[in-house]
């Protein structure tokens, strides 16, 4: 008996270590599969095109924003302003194509501009985030809090707090249209995720992002332009938030500066955390983030489809984040 007891602890520890590592690598995927199986058994009419459509279109904006957030988090930062930037882009686009801002008659040009200008605008705001973080060494959480608060205010002031209702099939193609039968926003989501994955994996700036997050001092000493790299991720995060903002207003046929992107920063951060990227930086798992967003979406859908109110879904979401972070820490200690 005694011998068994004294010899067992190391064995137990090592198997626990492996379990933690496995969980951190495949945990998100396992959770996703588990949710699918649960729904197949419990939720009525789960296997239908409609369910797939609803979930994919709802998850698309989360994924798009969360991809930008993954890049920011990979440098050891965080971007709280994404929801507000969505509101800004979402407010600007209708003002452009409804001809309120620019004296241009040609509708085609207006539509194109209503995609380009809002995104350029929020990229500028993203650059401002990066400027605060790099030039004044303000902690990212505080620096982006500025636009988290002021950004939505700007959107509200610009629209006088009014709801902008519109019907413009060309603009709304991004949310309503289909490409080869797939909803346009889902296509956008896939493209964004693939591009970001390739950016991180194969490009110089992608590797520099990871190095800055992994060891900023070492990165600077190897000549990596740390400030430029950091500013870059905030600009990209801003651009993707803007894109998501356009999709949201196009889907709603209306832009309400009070509501567009509300709480999105938290969904995005949650997706990154659940997806297995370290919140301290140095890792960027884009595919994980996509899966993380899917898990969060599926949890919400599962609860709603089974009559649990949205408010309760929030609590489950919080629980998910805790579990994800716990697993991360365990795996890291191992």
């Amino acid at each position, binding site marked *: 008996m005694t011998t068994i007891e004294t010899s067992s602890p190391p064995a137990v520890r090592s198997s626990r270590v492996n379990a933690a590592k496995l969980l951190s690598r495949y945990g998100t995927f396992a959770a996703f599969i588990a949710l699918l199986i649960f729904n197949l058994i419990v939720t009525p009419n789960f296997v239908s095109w409609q369910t797939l459509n609803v979930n994919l279109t709802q998850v698309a904006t989360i994924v798009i924003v969360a991809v930008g957030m993954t890049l920011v988090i990979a440098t050891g930062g965080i971007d709280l302003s994404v929801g507000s930037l969505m509101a800004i882009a979402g407010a600007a686009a209708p003002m452009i194509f409804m001809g309120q801002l620019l004296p241009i008659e040609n509708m085609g040009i207006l539509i194109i501009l209503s995609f380009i200008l809002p995104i350029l605008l929020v990229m500028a705001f993203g650059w401002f985030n990066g400027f605060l973080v790099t030039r004044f060494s303000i902690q990212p959480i505080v620096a982006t809090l500025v636009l988290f608060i002021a950004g939505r205010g700007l959107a509200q002031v610009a629209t006088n707090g009014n709801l902008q209702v519109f019907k413009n099939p060309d603009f709304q193609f991004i949310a309503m249209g289909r490409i080869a039968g797939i909803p346009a926003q889902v296509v956008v989501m896939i493209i964004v995720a693939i591009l970001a994955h390739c950016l991180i994996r*194969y*490009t*110089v*700036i992608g*590797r*520099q992002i*990871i*190095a800055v997050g*992994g*060891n900023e*001092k*070492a*990165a*600077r*000493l*190897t*000549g*990596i*332009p740390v400030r430029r790299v950091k500013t870059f991720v905030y600009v990209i995060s801003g651009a993707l938030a803007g894109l998501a903002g356009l999709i949201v207003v196009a889907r709603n046929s209306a832009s309400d500066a009070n509501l567009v992107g509300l709480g999105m920063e938290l969904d995005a951060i949650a997706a990154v955390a659940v997806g297995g990227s370290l919140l301290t930086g*140095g*890792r960027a798992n884009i595919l994980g983030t996509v899966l993380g967003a899917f898990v969060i979406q599926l949890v919400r859908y599962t609860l709603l489809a089974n009559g649990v109110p949205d408010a309760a879904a929030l609590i489950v979401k919080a629980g998910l984040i805790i579990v994800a972070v716990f697993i991360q820490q365990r795996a890291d200690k191992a």
Partner: protein
Amino acid sequence: MLLTMQDISKAFSGVSALRSASLSIAEGEVMALVGQNGAGKSTLIKILTGVYQRDTGLIKFQDEDVVFATPSASQAKGIATIYQEINLAPQRSVAENIYLSREPRKFFGLLDRRAMREGAAAVLKTFNLDIDVDMPVAHFNAATRQMIAIARAVTQKAKLVIMDEPTSSLDEREVGILFDTIRTLKKNGVSVLFIGHRLDELYEICDRVTIMRDGQTVAQSAMQDMPKMELVRHMLGKELAAFEAIARDAGNDDSRPIRLSAEAVGSGVRVRDVSLTVREGEISGLAGLLGSGRTETARIVFGVDKLDKGKIRVDGKERSYSEPADAIADGIGLVSEDRKIDGIVPDMSIRENMTLALLPKLKKAGIVDRARQQEIVTRYIKALGVKCASPDQPIKELSGGNQQKVLLARWLCTDPRILIIDEPTRGIDIGAKAEILKLLRSLADEGLSVLMISSELEELLAAADRVTVLSDGRSVAVLKRNELSETALLSAMAHQVN
């Protein structure tokens, strides 16, 4: 004796940090504790203050056998520690800091602010310090903050105050103020354990000295009976002959063109006046005791820290880099002293760590040229004999010596003309040490200029073609190959003119 520590041993996961070290301090005595990095000073202090537990040995404090299980237990007995990064709460007032966690109370447990203020002012007055005790600590300079920390120790009725490199961030005037404070402590019968590296300061303020090396106490004597040379010799030891000399024969050294030169360079209080030259194809050593400003000089040259005064020339052109990237563009590389803190990116693979500095040149339209990267990494792993399972292994899994080789390769693959290498063999086993020094030599023979910072005499003697010696932020001697000897180096480090 106030404190006697005898035969203290301590090992961390099998690696011994202390081997029967000892230390004794009398009442009202200022004891200097000196030794190189890794000599075991801080382990000894941490055992004394209850941060670590000893494996074997005896500690007597005030004629009583003691075991401090926690830092607060040692504080309760009257041992106060003042760390380099002073542990005060910067935004709280002076009075609050002095009474932190021992605040005088009134009825209902409310703070007695008046008692705090008056008590604090009274204590500070004994150190001739007349400051507004309601101001936040952050408002004051480093020396004053240190005195506030000392005042805090005094109100705790400390019998022994441990000061860990208290002068490292002070200017000369502030050092004077600190020393007055120490003398006041002494007068009140309080003992001080003074950990420091600046010899002149030690001789000025300390009564006795304890010297540690390799986890052992190698000497203990009254300060005036210990000549500087002797002290340095004890600190550095003389386990020479471990390497065969691999330096090139001198002779026409000074005919080679100068690649890098610093002229009366200064920055902050750590680097005051440093001049040095590195010629083409030579290994130029930079020596000095801990805290003499070696690493800081390298950081200035490389553009990490700002140059306050003096000139830096690279290939004869005046240069003042504001970012390492600018220095790298001029063909300079820096292998830094602390691999963990500013060398490796732990989670990244060997491949990525090795090519981090080269990345901008490895791109085709922004995309990393994987084939070329792989080719370079394979070549350097082979050339430097990096032992690893695969280039995709995270660098944190490698041994210190292999990590160092990867970091060396990180610069070599950028084809630098000047390589600054800070403690090339720190934390590396003896076999790998000789290997790395040989490698540096063969690189120099191919024309690379190397500035080698080292605290190991044998390394400098074996590999350097010339050595610039720093002391207290100033370059005090330049020794050419034919002038290099253990004695010459030691006496220059001790800053003695023969």
